[in-house]
């Protein structure tokens, strides 16, 4: 009897409602979705088992391969540009005493905007008739052609990544700056005595000591890059000509435009396996003693 009222058990009682809800709305649908990848279900009628047919078809699908490649580019972009910018800005901001909060607020503000608003802002900025380049052109300043980068196949993916990065990087600034404030000031004083430059202090003091936060940010970027959807969907819907198609838009289109729910579940399954793989890598690194 006492086992039901032990300290450990009581903790479980508190968690139980959340676990039940999580099971019903996340775990169970996910498991069902995994099962659907082996069927030809169209979202309405009979479910027929088709084995691995969806996967064979998937590996032969040129637009799926294109979407995979775009997700890789997306991940690489987000692992470099926003991180580099955020680290630099966070480090510079730690040296500012007056007005630092204002900068932090400015950088973080786009993160608080709904994705639809961010996207509309940038769509209007690059609008070919009423946008900034068109206005500059009308004033005789032909710096940028009045063509929306979201509508050109050469630039669409990068343009969408830019808008998403613009909204996201302020979040990184905030978490990095929080990490930097945890660094013991005496270490910087010691470095000063040794005659270290600002860059050397960043390289040999700051960076090693914020490593857990830094690695955490890399992990979330890799994981969040897999299901990226909203910015792509709002700005380009994966176009033009699949030039900004990513896995999530491909999955959505298969499920809701083409009624290929089984096929889209196969895409979802691969995304799931990839996520598990990434999380496992970080788990292994943790076991090896990395401070993550």
């Amino acid at each position: 009897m006492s086992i039901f009222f032990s300290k450990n058990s009581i903790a479980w009682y508190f968690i139980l409602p959340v676990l039940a809800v999580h099971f019903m709305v996340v775990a169970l649908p996910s498991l069902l979705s995994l099962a659907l990848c082996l069927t030809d279900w169209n979202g309405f009628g009979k479910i027929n088992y088709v084995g691995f047919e969806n996967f064979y078809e998937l590996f032969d699908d040129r637009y799926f391969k294109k979407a995979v490649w775009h997700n890789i580019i997306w991940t690489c972009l987000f692992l470099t540009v926003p991180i580099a910018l955020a680290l630099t800005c966070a480090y510079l901001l730690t040296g500012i005493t007056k007005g630092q909060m204002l900068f932090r607020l400015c950088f973080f503000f786009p993160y608080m905007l709904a994705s639809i608003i961010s996207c509309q802002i940038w769509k209007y900025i690059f609008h070919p008739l009423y946008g900034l380049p068109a206005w500059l052109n009308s004033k005789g300043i032909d710096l940028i052609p009045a063509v929306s980068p979201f509508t050109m196949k050469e630039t669409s993916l990068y343009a969408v990544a830019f808008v998403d990065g613009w909204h996201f990087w302020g979040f990184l600034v905030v978490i990095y700056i929080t990490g930097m404030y945890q660094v013991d000031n005496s270490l910087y004083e010691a470095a000063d005595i040794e005659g270290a430059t600002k860059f050397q202090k960043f390289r040999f003091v700051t960076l090693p000591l914020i490593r857990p936060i830094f690695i955490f940010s890399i992990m979330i970027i890799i994981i969040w890059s897999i299901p990226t959807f909203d910015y792509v969907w709002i700005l380009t819907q994966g176009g033009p000509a699949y030039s900004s198609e990513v896995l999530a838009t491909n999955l959505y289109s298969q499920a809701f435009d083409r009624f290929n729910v089984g096929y889209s579940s196969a895409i979802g399954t691969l995304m799931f396996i990839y996520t598990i793989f990434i999380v496992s890598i970080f788990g292994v690194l943790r076991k090896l003693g990395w401070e993550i």
Partner: protein
Amino acid sequence: MIKKLFIVFVASIFSLNSFSVFAKTTVTWWAETNANRDPVFEAKLVDAFNASQNDIELVMEFKEGLNDILRTAMLSGEGPDIVETPGPSYVKEYQEAGLLKSMQGYSSQYGWEDKLLPWSYQAGVFNGEFYSAPKTFETMIMLYNKTLFEENGWKVPTTLSEYEDVASKIKAAGMNVFAYGSTGWQPTHEHLAGMYLNSYAGPDNVYKALIGEKDWTDPEFVGAVELLRKHMVDDGYWSGSLENYYALGWDDFHAMFASRGAAMMTIGTWTFGATAAGFADSSDEWDWAPFPVLRDGGADPAYLLALGTTMSINASSGDPDAAAKVFDFIFSNKKIVLDMAADFNFGEFVVPLYFSADDIRNDVSPQVKRYLVDFAEATGKGDYGYTTWTFWPADPGVHIWKDMEVVWAGDISVEDYMYDHQKMWDKARKKGELLPVGAR
């Protein structure tokens, strides 16, 4: 004892009778919400129907994101009595899953086949039985700035040579040929694809391809897509360039058309309201014409058939007879239909009935009146073409617009695109996914 039983019997009969006298059957109808439309449906359809009889209470519920909610409800054996879908491809899926009730019996009982335009009735016949009725129809037309055309002495084109000739004159005058764009609604491309396929290859050939007597790889279809590619990419007919076409949305291209940024606009009849509003403050006048015939030899231009929304009865409806009475009320009341459609600027609830000029309100613009009468007359005689969103199955239906961008980008040849298209049709045909076309 017998006396007591008699009293109980009389009392129960009385209570049953009184129940049936005062209780009405409720028919529920879920529709996609729209702040402007919903009050009109309530006032002019729901209230009118409920006032017309004492047995049925029609309740319309307006939902955000109806498709997703409806599908979930239907799959769990719930949902409204009257099921509204965005088009025949959805009806096909629901019907195959056994989620819709056949309305064949009601159709025979109420004579719906004689009340609805034949093509629209046929579009609701699945496996020989009537499953869905059209809630609204639409077609593609070519709007033009009448004042501008008259000022410049331009002629509304009816053939390919006239079409290309007037396009070059419009461009030489510093305007865009057509105002149009696809931002916010990528399937806009299929409006153009459908027009070119029907106009260049001819509706008879499109019909043959739909029923499998021709292949989409045949030269007339390849030629149609190639001509569209040339006009879109090389000549920049729509909003000046492919990139601008991708970047402009509904408000942008209507503003462009109303402000002489473009001389014409290829669009569906759902635009009448927006176009009239755009020209309200302008001294220019707009008008419309059928899209020109782009094939050699010429022919009468054909209206493309399109159903905007469909209405069916839920297989799990508690009282399908009552739901059928709602449909019959609509199909038997041209005045209510036209009155509501006029309130929606003929962009919604244009139920395909046999309209004549006398049926239409006097305050309806002459352009719209001409369209309604012409369309009913021409399509009633069997002179029509086919839109992709009403007659193409889901997979080829998405391919026709989504992969059209790949052609326009120059990443695939028109021949390869049409080869892929044919493969998708073959697959859909094999899986029994084709939609009803009706005999031509």
